[in-house]
């Protein structure tokens, strides 16, 4: 599949980051959809089958870990890359995220350039 038309789903409850990421990812040529919480995120993920999901950890209701676990429990989602975003930076959380099936883990504050580079890497692989 052409890298440039890859679909990315951004799941985060903070509008600022959603706005920024949507803008930047669209500029980089991806098709972007968004969700404001875990439940909406799961629905959209199943409906749209994105190639990569940017998943915030700290969300009310279902948190990012739960969403990740649930997605990974679904064999149809096996090819979807999941990148977790969070302000917490401890090793243990990263280990947890990766253990639950995430492909990568990025801590806030992050440089969006670096994020997009990482996204490109993961989609190319």
């Amino acid at each position, binding site marked *: 599949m052409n890298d440039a038309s890859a679909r990315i789903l951004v799941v985060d409850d903070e509008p600022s980051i959603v706005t920024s990421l949507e803008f930047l990812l669209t500029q980089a040529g991806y098709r972007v959809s968004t969700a404001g919480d875990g439940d909406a995120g799961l629905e959209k993920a199943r409906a749209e089958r994105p190639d990569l999901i940017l998943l915030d950890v700290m969300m009310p209701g*279902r*948190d990012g*870990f*739960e969403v990740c*676990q*649930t997605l*990974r*429990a679904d064999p149809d989602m096996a090819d979807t890359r999941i990148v977790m975003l969070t302000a917490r*930076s*401890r*090793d*243990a*959380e990263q*280990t*947890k995220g990766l*253990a*639950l*099936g995430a492909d990568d883990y990025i801590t806030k*504050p992050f440089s969006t350039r670096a994020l997009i580079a990482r996204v490109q890497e993961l989609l190319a692989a």
Partner: protein
Amino acid sequence: MSRRPSPLTRAALATAVCVAASLLAAGLLAWLALAPDTRAALLADPRSALLLLLGAGAAAAAGWGAWQLLRPHIGMVPRLVHALDILRESNPSFRLTREAPPELARAINALAADFQYRLGAVENRIREATDELAGERDLLAALLAQLREAVLVCADDGRILLYNPPAQQLLSGEHAPFVGLGRSVFSLFRRSVILHCLDRLAEHDSQDSDAAVRAIINTRDGRLLRARFSPLQQGRLSGFFLTLAEAEGVAAGMAQPEEQRAEVTDSALRHLTHVRTAIEALRDYPAMEDAQRERFLAMIDDESAVLGNCLAHSRQLEHAAQQARWPLEEIAAETFCAVLQRRVAAAAEGAVSLRVETPDDWLRADSYAMAAALRFVAARVRSELDGAAFCLRLSHSDDHAALDLLWSGPPVPPARWSQWERQPVQQGDGALPYTLSEIARRHGGECWPLQEGVAGARWLLPLANAPGQRAAVEHAAGARPEYYDFNLFQTAPRDGDDRRDTRLRELICTAFDTETTGLDPAAGDEIIAIGGIRVVNGRILSQEVFESLVATGRPIAASAQAVHGISAAMLADAPSAEQLLPRFARFCEDTVLLAHNGAFDLSFLTRQGGGLGIDFSQPILDTLLLSAVLYPEGDAHQLEAIAERLGVSVIGRHTALGDAIVTAEIFVRLIPLLEARGIETLGDALRASQETWYARLDYG
């Protein structure tokens, strides 16, 4: 020999005289009653002489008979007195047999039996009370040792009457003054600060039992400590109570944690302001030059990066503060798992198996909270998922320890886990107000349900280094340390000449011994080892010891080395005399020195110390001389011989500290023997020592 005849003899004479006198009187009366011609007839009759003889014989027999009757009763009194003396003073089990008539003997023996019984009962009671007291003392000592706070109890004049091991550790140091019973607290801290705090304390209402003064005080070797003074008035005791703690973060120039956090927040706000300023400029002046725009954008970039750092720093400080509020203990992996296994088994109502893959690990964990967390999950798994046959597994995962709770049954659905995570972990009695995730985070770790069909949950826990050796407080081997002596309250210290009036059993002494390169200080022989131990109020303080080798440039004589076994190689890392003698002088300052053949050791100390400006002019008691005072005829005055005679076990002979300890033990045992000879005070002992002829030997 007394000129007065014994009572027995007197009684015998008296009886004889009585009998003779009465017979004579009877004979005389009879003679006088007879008519003159009867008298003449009797005199002429030869049978009258025989009659007279018979009469005399009968009289003698009567006298003897009377004597036999009387004698037991006469002699009885001194015998009884003697027997009763024996009974009372040396042998309560003595019983009378023939010293008195049977009834009297029975009565006295009954009294003796009663006396012996009561004596025994009193002794038992004393022994019980002493044991009880000793038991309470041991308990007090054990409690003191368990206190983590450093504690000192001082008399009004600053003498230390009680301290505990944390105090000794906190205040010890290479250049630090010594902590010890009878030493002055003013030698540990700056006098002015202590006096100031005591003044403030005095201002409090004497009835106010909460009165306390807190301060930061300086030790004499320049450290800062938090101190809390409170008054101590208990019966005859009058003084103050001092607790000490490290002053964390109060090192010079370093701000307190709260101040640090405030500083970081202020800094963050400053940087945020710069960002906002730049943004406002960009918005208000959309037509500004590109270069200027670039500068503002760069400012936003940089300042916000710094802002990020500030907040990361703030989080670190918060984490550190949390560590203090909710401390984790270091615990060996095996112990930790064993504890958890028991607690979980109770909740799971069945055995829990254990697999510890990394038994040598040490963890930092709150075992109580973790046990509660595991029990919670196990109980939920049992009731909601019908899980059973639990297993605990401990392994490694990168830099953490991984603790897994496994079971047979279905794994936890993610939604369910989220629910569980958010509930407080223990309900009802003893509720822990923490959730699973909070407990996991407190351990710097996380917890989550395992994936890929494995039914279980994992906790990541931080690893710790195996605890290093805590700096051991030096101890004389095998003795129970003594950390308090309240008798010091009653004995005021004496200075100068007054000190000679101090009783020997109330002295504060330093028993010491040295090992040297050879026997001739004048020829340049030097000290290569010093050992010392403190004796206070007749008690040897096993935890107040001084022991060190001393480096020297002088070669060690082979004969000396054969005795003490110290070679030049062993002295390679030892401090020099310049470094060590001042410390030793501080160890034994204001005490009486105690040594065996002290003239020898003292000659080295004064020679080497004098060169360094140290004055070893304390009075010195010599156990060699004191032994000679008591047993002038004896010729065995070697340390071992005297020790054996007094029942002191000699271990570690020919090490400086070992010999010092033996000297101290000998001294303590000599004290009652000297007192029995009338040598009670220091002055008496010094005088007596000088008079013995050994003192004539001079070691120059």
